[in-house]
């Protein structure tokens, strides 16, 4: 297996130091506006509302983390935004406006051209997301040449080779990797290749779906820091989908917490971690073990509900320590609590600001 030399990566390390200047990165331009977005699965036993009525806004340059347990609908939402939902799933309602265009209204061809060029996916489990019988270089080039508009000249071989070399170097890989097959790379290297593909057309939004779930902590940190550095270079936004609250705390600017298909809380990472509003978020953060202090483990009692034919009311009510009568009668709506803080919980009824 081939790895970049230490010298090669040290070059990039220096750039990485600038990664956390949040203020300088986020602009006030809306990159992605998601409104009432819903993905349903029609099954024999009923409609599964895997992702229901999700609304949020992602600013240009922002790192937005979507967290939740398995089955909470976070990956469904991400795949739905890319319009990669497979039958029997379908986008039931809502809109997702990326740079002023509603993705749900695009034709199939327009959507195909939008993928990678404006909206790129860095997939979960990069292990298998590369075609095992195709060289790395070719897999990077593929995406580029399939996005050349009909009336434009395709780049020639030398230009493409140069692009591949450049992309690989930028994600911290040796240019020679282009000639290798996926099985000749380690997990971390494959994830880097996936990132090189993701940024190849300078997208304005990168959807990173659990990009480091199968990797070791040191490699995970390297990958996330590289991803952050690449985002800086592109002025792009990132939607990080994951379940690891630690990773979110390290990486994201804004966090959105999903539970049973709904977005239950949104807010700046520092604020949500120090002062969570929704009881689910509170319990989730309380359950995280730390290296600072030893204490008893605190889980969240109970299990998430089945998503088929959810009853009216709050889906978290059964597990909620603050449950009261209204929780079983009215489905809570998202309310703004000032700044960018939002939550869908009846505890805050009456505190809403507009």
């Amino acid at each position: 297996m081939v790895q970049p030399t230490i010298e090669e990566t040290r070059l990039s390390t220096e750039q990485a130091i600038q990664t956390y200047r949040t203020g300088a990165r986020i602009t006030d331009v809306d990159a992605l506006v998601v409104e009432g977005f819903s993905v349903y699965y029609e099954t024999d036993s009923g409609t599964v509302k895997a992702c229901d009525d999700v609304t949020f806004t992602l600013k240009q340059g922002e790192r937005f983390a979507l967290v939740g347990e398995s089955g909470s609908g976070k990956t469904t939402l991400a795949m739905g935004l890319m319009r990669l939902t497979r039958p029997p799933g379908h986008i039931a309602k809502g809109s997702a406006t990326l740079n002023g265009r509603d993705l749900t209204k695009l034709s199939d061809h327009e959507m195909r051209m939008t993928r990678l060029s404006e909206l790129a996916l860095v997939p979960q489990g990069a292990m298998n997301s590369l075609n095992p019988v195709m060289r790395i270089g070719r897999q990077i080039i593929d995406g580029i040449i399939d996005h050349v508009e009909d009336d434009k000249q395709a780049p020639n071989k030398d230009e493409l080779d140069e692009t591949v070399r450049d992309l690989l170097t930028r994600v911290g890989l040796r240019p020679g990797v282009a000639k290798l097959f996926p099985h000749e790379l380690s997990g971390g290297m494959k994830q880097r290749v996936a990132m090189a593909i993701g940024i190849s057309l300078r997208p304005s939004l990168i959807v990173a779906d659990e990009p480091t779930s199968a990797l070791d902590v040191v490699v995970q940190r390297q990958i996330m820091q590289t991803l952050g550095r690449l985002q800086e270079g592109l002025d792009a936004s990132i939607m990080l989908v994951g379940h690891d609250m630690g990773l979110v705390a390290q990486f994201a600017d804004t966090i959105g917490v999903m539970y049973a298909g709904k977005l239950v809380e949104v807010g700046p990472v520092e604020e949500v971690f120090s002062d969570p509003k929704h009881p689910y978020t509170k319990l989730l953060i309380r359950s995280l073990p730390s290296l600072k202090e030893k204490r008893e483990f605190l889980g969240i009692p109970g299990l998430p509900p089945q998503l088929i034919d959810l009853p009216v009311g709050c889906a978290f009510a059964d597990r909620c320590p603050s449950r009261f009568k209204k929780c079983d009668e009215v489905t809570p709506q998202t309310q703004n609590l000032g700044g960018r803080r939002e939550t869908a919980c009846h505890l805050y009824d009456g505190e809403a600001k507009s």
Partner: protein
Amino acid sequence: MGVLNHFVVKRFLFFLFVVWLASTVIFIIPRLSGQDPVKEKLLLEAQRGGAMQTGLDAMAKTYQKRFGLDQPLWTQYLNFLQDLAKLDLGVSIAFFPRTVNDIVFESLMWTLGLMGTVTILAFVLGTLAGAVLGWPRKPGWVQYIFMPLLTLSAIPQYLLAMILIFLIAFKLGWLPLFGGYSPASVPTLTFEFVVDVAKHAILPAFAIIFSAIGFWAIGMRGMMINTQGEDYMIQADAKGLKGSRIFMRYAVRNALLPQVTGLALVLGTIVTGQVLVERVFSYPGIGDILFQAIRLSDFFVIRGIVIIIILGIAGATFLLDVLYPLLDPRIKVRNS
């Protein structure tokens, strides 16, 4: 490169091993039954007397000398292997003194010509059909056209051959009923003769292709459906690639791998099917010779044909094994 050589050498040694073990089985079978088909055949001929009478002594002597039946078993075995190494398959009993090589190699050309073409054609067409059938974005009508075709694969090739003979050759009279070429024509490389041969080959070819296409299509369809679930297929979509590229370079390219492995596994079945189709059409290939030899109890010709076929299958398997790493880059590393 060193690894590749290593790999080829290993496969070749295995090829030799297969041929050796198979030949040994062939050597043992007659010894197990306690019967001697050769002696019986000679007796039968002697009883009949007639035309063969004069040659019989010479034949018996050659037979004795060649096979040294008075010698111990292992000497016979070594002689057998020695002859095999020289590709000397012995002498025919029914057509003494013609050698088996002489008889078999003539018909081998017909068989190889037909079977080679037809197997490759059926594999390619069937794989393509299966690829389309297993593709979720296929046009709806494809299902209705191809699915009945798949059912044809369930019908044995030689029965399909009979139906074709009845409909096309007998009822409609469009193509010849049997044979490899018209009895009247002279086997030379003239245009007329080539056309004649082609006409005779159409029906047997179709009989084999029709039933084999379905077999390959079913396998490929299954592999295509399996491939749909792979992460790299989702990623290919997420990359915004053209449908045609995802189909060919991502789906088909990967689904093809088990398909090729499958080809190596069913070579034996292919040959058997071909042998029987030739019998139905009286096609002058190896199958027809085999049938004649069975009728005449010409043991050495039968044994020769079996050995040739085994050599062919083992050889083709060896070739596929050696070429497979070109298709699947992961093999070279595993090296086993």
